[in-house]
């Protein structure tokens, strides 16, 4: 049995302009000891999904359906102490921009100790001793425990935040854009530390990022999210070698590689739908060069394709053929604009 | 769209490009969202109509003495059909005075607020944009203005310049620009580093153009906020100055009426009809200014609303 099993989870935000369906039926599982990368464009619901898993959604958000099972327990049915036993202790989260939320007036060591006392019920001496071990683990000298956040570089702060997440020896760590604000070199080192810890501690890791290179570099499995849904999932090697979903195919041609001389890049024209009124059919249809009549009104389900992989596309069976056409097909869209424009829909889409 | 079609649509596009129209739209948006602000606008609207129509609708000249049919001066009359709010101790019609008081309030409030907004915004723009010695000089001036106790200084200045309504307005402008100036300066300091301001420079806009075309429209709503607050302040201050007897003796204002009533022991005689109406009017006018200011504030700093 998988450590984490999410089944058609839906999360909505209630806003002045109606309900925003940030997560629209996500199904996903994470095996023990695996590093899973969750990629997707800004606003596709990655952070919302992560926060729903750990039960720290903002006040205007509500879980609109689905189930989350962690190690056999139904997380969404838990509350109070029972939930807290899972949250932070067995599932830890490194929130987006966490390193900026370190309190500037306390020493980082004290903040770490405080976290362990509050969330883990450790005594002060126990917590202090563990703090030193944690610092060593994430590659920080114990002396740094006495420093204030502003005395640390971004990479070191991120290491402190990782230490905090590991403090209560969780089984699953969710890291939301853990290196986005960091420089390439520092980013590389922090990610490597994270990966090494994941391997030595036998953790499961859910790494959220918009950068598929990071996932390619670090993870065993990849999950591609689009407009509140999972559109493709599988092992990193297989998905990147031969994507089954047109969105993933598009992503592969959309940005350059440093190590290979890129042919002309091909963008995915257009933008994701407004999640306040998601379309009836496939959410990717307006940007998809392979959309057929059916795609516009029939939303594809996430189904197994070949080799134990998953994809949500009506034409997944033709994936191999589509893949060879993908660069030219997306390039044609670049020249003519996305389909919603061609079919006369307002191009600016009203909102963003 | 062909170029001839575009030429036809031109007026529509250029009209929509006026930044001043934009600022007015913001005012309307404030009123539409906020019931208090709408109430404030309505009060000002009524005030304006009353002030404009005063000579027509007022039953008497507010300065004229009125006589009873028997030829006696109609002094200290209680409200009656000919004199809705009674008469003063000298026989002047109180209702007509209240109506004419709206003129003074409006002139003082709006001229002073306009002056405050213009002066404060200019100071803020120059200080914030140029920084350096311009900033230092202007902000030291603001510090000085802040150090001055407002009401005593206003009285001293009016007494010195002579008791005229225009002097009162001038004094208020000179003393009230400081708040607007400081706030606008802070705003300009943060706007100055925005990319679009730098973009204007890169495109070759002169300093003045950058300041007035690119920065000013973005601080105008803030200026209006301080302007609407200044309206209330100015009306209140004018009333205070007049009440203390430093006002323009030739202009009927609500403050002047209160002073008149106070001097003739209207309070002791429980002549509510004399001092309550002008007092109420002052209160309403001041409140209207603050209501509109509040609406602006919520629009500009929406975080306040959530608390």
């Amino acid at each position, binding site marked *: 049995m998988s450590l984490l099993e999410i089944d058609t989870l839906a999360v909505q935000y209630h806003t002045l302009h109606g309900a925003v369906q940030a997560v629209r039926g996500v199904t996903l599982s994470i095996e023990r000891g695996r590093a899973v990368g969750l990629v997707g464009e800004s606003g596709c619901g990655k952070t919302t999904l992560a926060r729903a898993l750990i039960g720290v959604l903002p006040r205007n958000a509500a879980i609109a359906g689905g189930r989350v099972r962690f190690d056999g327990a139904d997380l969404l049915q838990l509350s109070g102490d029972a939930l807290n036993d899972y949250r932070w202790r067995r599932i830890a989260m490194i929130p987006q921009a966490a390193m900026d939320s370190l309190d500037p007036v306390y020493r980082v060591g004290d903040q770490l100790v405080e976290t362990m006392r509050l969330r883990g019920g450790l005594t002060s001496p126990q917590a202090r001793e563990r703090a030193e071990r944690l610092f060593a683990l994430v590659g920080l000298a114990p002396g740094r425990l006495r420093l204030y956040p502003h005395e640390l570089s971004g990479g070191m702060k991120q290491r402190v935040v990782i230490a905090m997440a590991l403090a209560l020896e969780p089984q699953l760590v969710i890291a939301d854009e853990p290196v986005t604000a960091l420089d390439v070199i520092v980013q590389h080192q922090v990610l490597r530390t994270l990966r090494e810890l994941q391997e030595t501690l036998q953790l499961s890791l859910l790494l959220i990022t918009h950068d598929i290179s990071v996932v390619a570099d670090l993870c065993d499995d990849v999950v591609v999210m689009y407009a509140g849904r999972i559109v493709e999932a599988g092992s990193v090697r297989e998905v990147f070698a031969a994507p089954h979903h047109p969105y993933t195919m598009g992503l592969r041609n959309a940005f350059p590689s*440093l190590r290979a001389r890129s042919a002309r890049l091909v963008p995915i024209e257009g933008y994701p739908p407004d999640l306040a009124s998601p379309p009836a059919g496939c959410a990717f249809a307006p940007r998809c060069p392979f959309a057929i009549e059916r795609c516009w009104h029939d939303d594809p389900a996430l189904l197994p394709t070949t080799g134990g992989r998953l994809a949500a596309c009506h034409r997944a069976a033709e994936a191999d053929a589509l893949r060879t056409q993908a660069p030219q097909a997306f390039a044609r869209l670049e020249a003519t604009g996305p389909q919603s424009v061609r079919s006369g829909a307002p191009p600016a889409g009203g909102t963003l | 769209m062909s170029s001839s079609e575009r030429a036809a649509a031109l007026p529509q596009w250029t009209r929509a490009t006026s930044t001043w129209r934009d600022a007015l739209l913001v005012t309307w948006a404030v009123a539409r969202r906020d019931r208090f602000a709408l109430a404030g606008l309505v009060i000002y609207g009524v005030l304006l109509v009353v002030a404009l129509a005063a000579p027509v609708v007022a039953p008497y000249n507010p300065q004229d003495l009125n006589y009873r049919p028997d030829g006696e001066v109609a002094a200290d009359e209680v409200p009656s059909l000919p004199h809705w709010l009674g008469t003063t101790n000298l026989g002047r019609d109180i209702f007509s005075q209240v109506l004419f008081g709206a003129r003074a309030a409006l002139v003082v409030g709006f001229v002073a607020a306009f002056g405050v907004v213009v002066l404060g915004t200019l100071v803020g723009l120059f200080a914030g944009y140029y920084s350096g010695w311009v900033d230092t000089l202007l902000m030291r001036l603001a510090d000085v203005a802040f150090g001055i106790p407002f009401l005593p200084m206003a009285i001293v200045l009016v007494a010195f310049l002579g008791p005229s309504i225009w002097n009162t307005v001038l004094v208020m402008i000179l003393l009230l620009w400081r708040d607007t100036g400081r706030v606008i300066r802070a705003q300009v300091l943060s706007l100055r580093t925005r990319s*679009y301001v730098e973009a*204007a420079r890169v495109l070759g806009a002169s300093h003045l153009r950058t300041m007035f075309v690119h920065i000013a429209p973005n601080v105008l709503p803030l200026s209006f906020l301080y302007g609407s607050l200044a309206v209330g302040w100015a009306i209140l201050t004018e009333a205070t100055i007049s009440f203390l007897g430093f006002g323009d003796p030739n202009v009927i204002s609500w403050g002047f009426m209160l002073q008149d009533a106070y001097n003739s022991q209207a309070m002791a005689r429980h002549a509510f009809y004399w001092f309550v109406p002008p007092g109420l009017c002052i209160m309403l006018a001041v409140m209207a200014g603050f209501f509109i200011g509040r609406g602006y504030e919520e629009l500009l700093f929406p975080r306040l609303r959530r608390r």
Partner: protein
Amino acid sequence: MNHLLEVTDLRKEYPLQSGLLGAVMGSRRVVHAVNGVSFVLDEGGSLGLAGESGCGKTTTAKLILKLLHPTAGSIRFAGRDVAGLDGSDLLSYRRQAQFIFQNPYEALNPRFTILRSLLEPLIIHEIGRSIAERVERVAGALDRVHLNPPETFFLKYPHQLSGGQLQRVVIARALLVDPVLLVADEPVSMLDVSIRAGVLNLMRDLSRERKLTTLYISHDLALIRYMCSVTAVMYLGTICEIGPTEEVIEHPRHPYTQALVSAVPDPDPTRPRRPVEIADTVPTPFQLPAGCPFADRCPQVMEVCRHLRPLLLPVDGGVRVACHLYPGSTPRAAEGDGAKLEPN
């Protein structure tokens, strides 16, 4: 060939807001944001400026565009010193050199419609005789950046457009004055990966079509490889390696470039990588080391690196490197040629 842009020993210091102690001690600390940058950019060429955040890329760009005044050094554009420009000369420089901003969400006046924003350069430079003609030009510019049909964008406000559309509007605005030099500071870093390529392709096509000279700033070497023929790598306010892009990325010579190249993640999980170990302590540009700026983190640091600053001198392959590992770049201080020693 003509040098369109010639930057020589450019320096920019920002005063550091020192605390009370500093004020009492009278110490005047400064940030050396740009610390002796020199390069030339030929007409029609494309130079990529790479480096970590805070290494002085944006400052260099703003100095070139005369948004900041240099502390020292010179910038020559088409043979004329930019520092001395004013009046109509400055206006004409402003017409020739344009800037694409990093944050498209901030680069357009929020109270201006798109049409109004795009009319601004035409008004300033008095391009076009009538308002109708100017509107025609604006429509043409929007069309060129693939915002179609142009009229639908005229009355939109910036907050109504997506990041990719905004960046296209910013590019259109720059093109309206027919510039010769285009400086782009991280033009796609705020955009989503799926639409980055569109903006990059647009910039590439437009600069080829119009023979624009481009200075492209990015922390992302992969993007620079895609966009530029020459690459300069910056570290702590100086250029540590500059040369043909393929050379710099395929055979990095400077230890910092080597570390940078090896740290970039690759979208292909099967491609092997050999990471270079360097410390992740990011230096602060207000206490510059006396010798090589990279000495604290350099895995190959030598004794000489600590006190002698290497000069940017040519090695093979058309590349110039500032590192003592390459004999060419060691100043001949020992031979008594003190004049070549760079001051710090």
